[in-house]
């Protein structure tokens, strides 16, 4: 899957979007991702293997800083 850098340092893998400028590196998303594909590098979240992401939204659900979320249809439905 293509990795795109958006404005303000945001990183989009289309199915998963990360905003490092809001991430405080707490590690909650890393701990509760059922696929164990996230890690922390330099106090920011990082995706190690986007292909394995099942868009379950567990990371988004418990991120205290709204710095990671599921893209595509799931996102479009909300708000």
């Amino acid at each position, binding site marked *: 899957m293509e990795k795109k850098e*958006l404005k303000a340092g*945001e990183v989009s893998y289309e199915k998963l*979007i990360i*905003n490092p*400028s*809001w991430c*405080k*590196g*707490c*590690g*909650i998303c*890393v*701990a*509760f991702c059922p696929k164990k594909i996230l890690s922390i590098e330099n106090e920011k979240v990082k995706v190690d293997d986007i292909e394995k992401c099942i868009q379950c939204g567990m990371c*988004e*659900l*418990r*991120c*205290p*800083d*709204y*710095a990671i*979320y*599921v893209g595509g249809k799931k*996102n*479009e*439905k*909300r*708000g």
Partner: protein
Amino acid sequence: MPSNLVEKYFRTEKLPQIWCPGCGHGVITRSIVDAIDQAGLDKDKVCIVSGIGCSSRAPGYMDFNTLHTTHGRALAFATGIKLAKPELKVIVITGDGDATAIGGNHFIHACRRNIGITTIVYNNNIYGMTGGQYSPTTPKHEKGTTAPFGNIDKAFDICDLASAAGASYVGRSTAYHANLTTTLVKNALNNEGFSLVEAVSGCPTYYGRKNKKGNAVDMMNWYKDNAVTAAAAAKLSEEQMAGKILIGEFKNKPEPEYTSEYQKIIDKLAKGR
């Protein structure tokens, strides 16, 4: 771009919040806007009121009518708003200190009146903002900066307190159980009278550190492993329940709401003239 949910309901120019890394308050705040979204409420018809504390900073980030008031007095301000504009959905966001220490009297009387306010207490068992003093919900023998050798007070059970005082909707969740928080807040918003949702929140900086609870992830894991639903609790002895957190919906018993009872008096007197 943030997620659609965040874009719609947050003042994104103010993010990220001032809260410490891994503070449970951010997770609970997201669950609340998720509930507002699922309840299909009109943003302009919602008013969110808070007192003072880390938890009370939440409405500052939320894109609704918001009011940040004085310590312990959120419910007093909210009562005024609800009486002046009963058509509004009034939500109070408060902390365990704000709601049950300095604001304890407002709290029990708002419950007793069954006024149509949905109150969400972010219970982190400590005064986070002022540096970790023990609060009315700090468990016995646990530590705070003002109880370096352990707190000897018995903790309040906020849900029992609200229920006994007359709240018509009562439930508890934790920062880990984000979807449950959303469900409880949504049900609470659907109750006409006073609703109380206690959301147990992790304060890794003070409560966590003072009581050797580990980091933010450890605290979330602790909620995951130690929260028990009422159904499961029924099968456990009192000893087995010690130190566990009871979660779920405890009371949903609609009763006449205060501002509509007040309106009845107005209507009656208006007819008499």
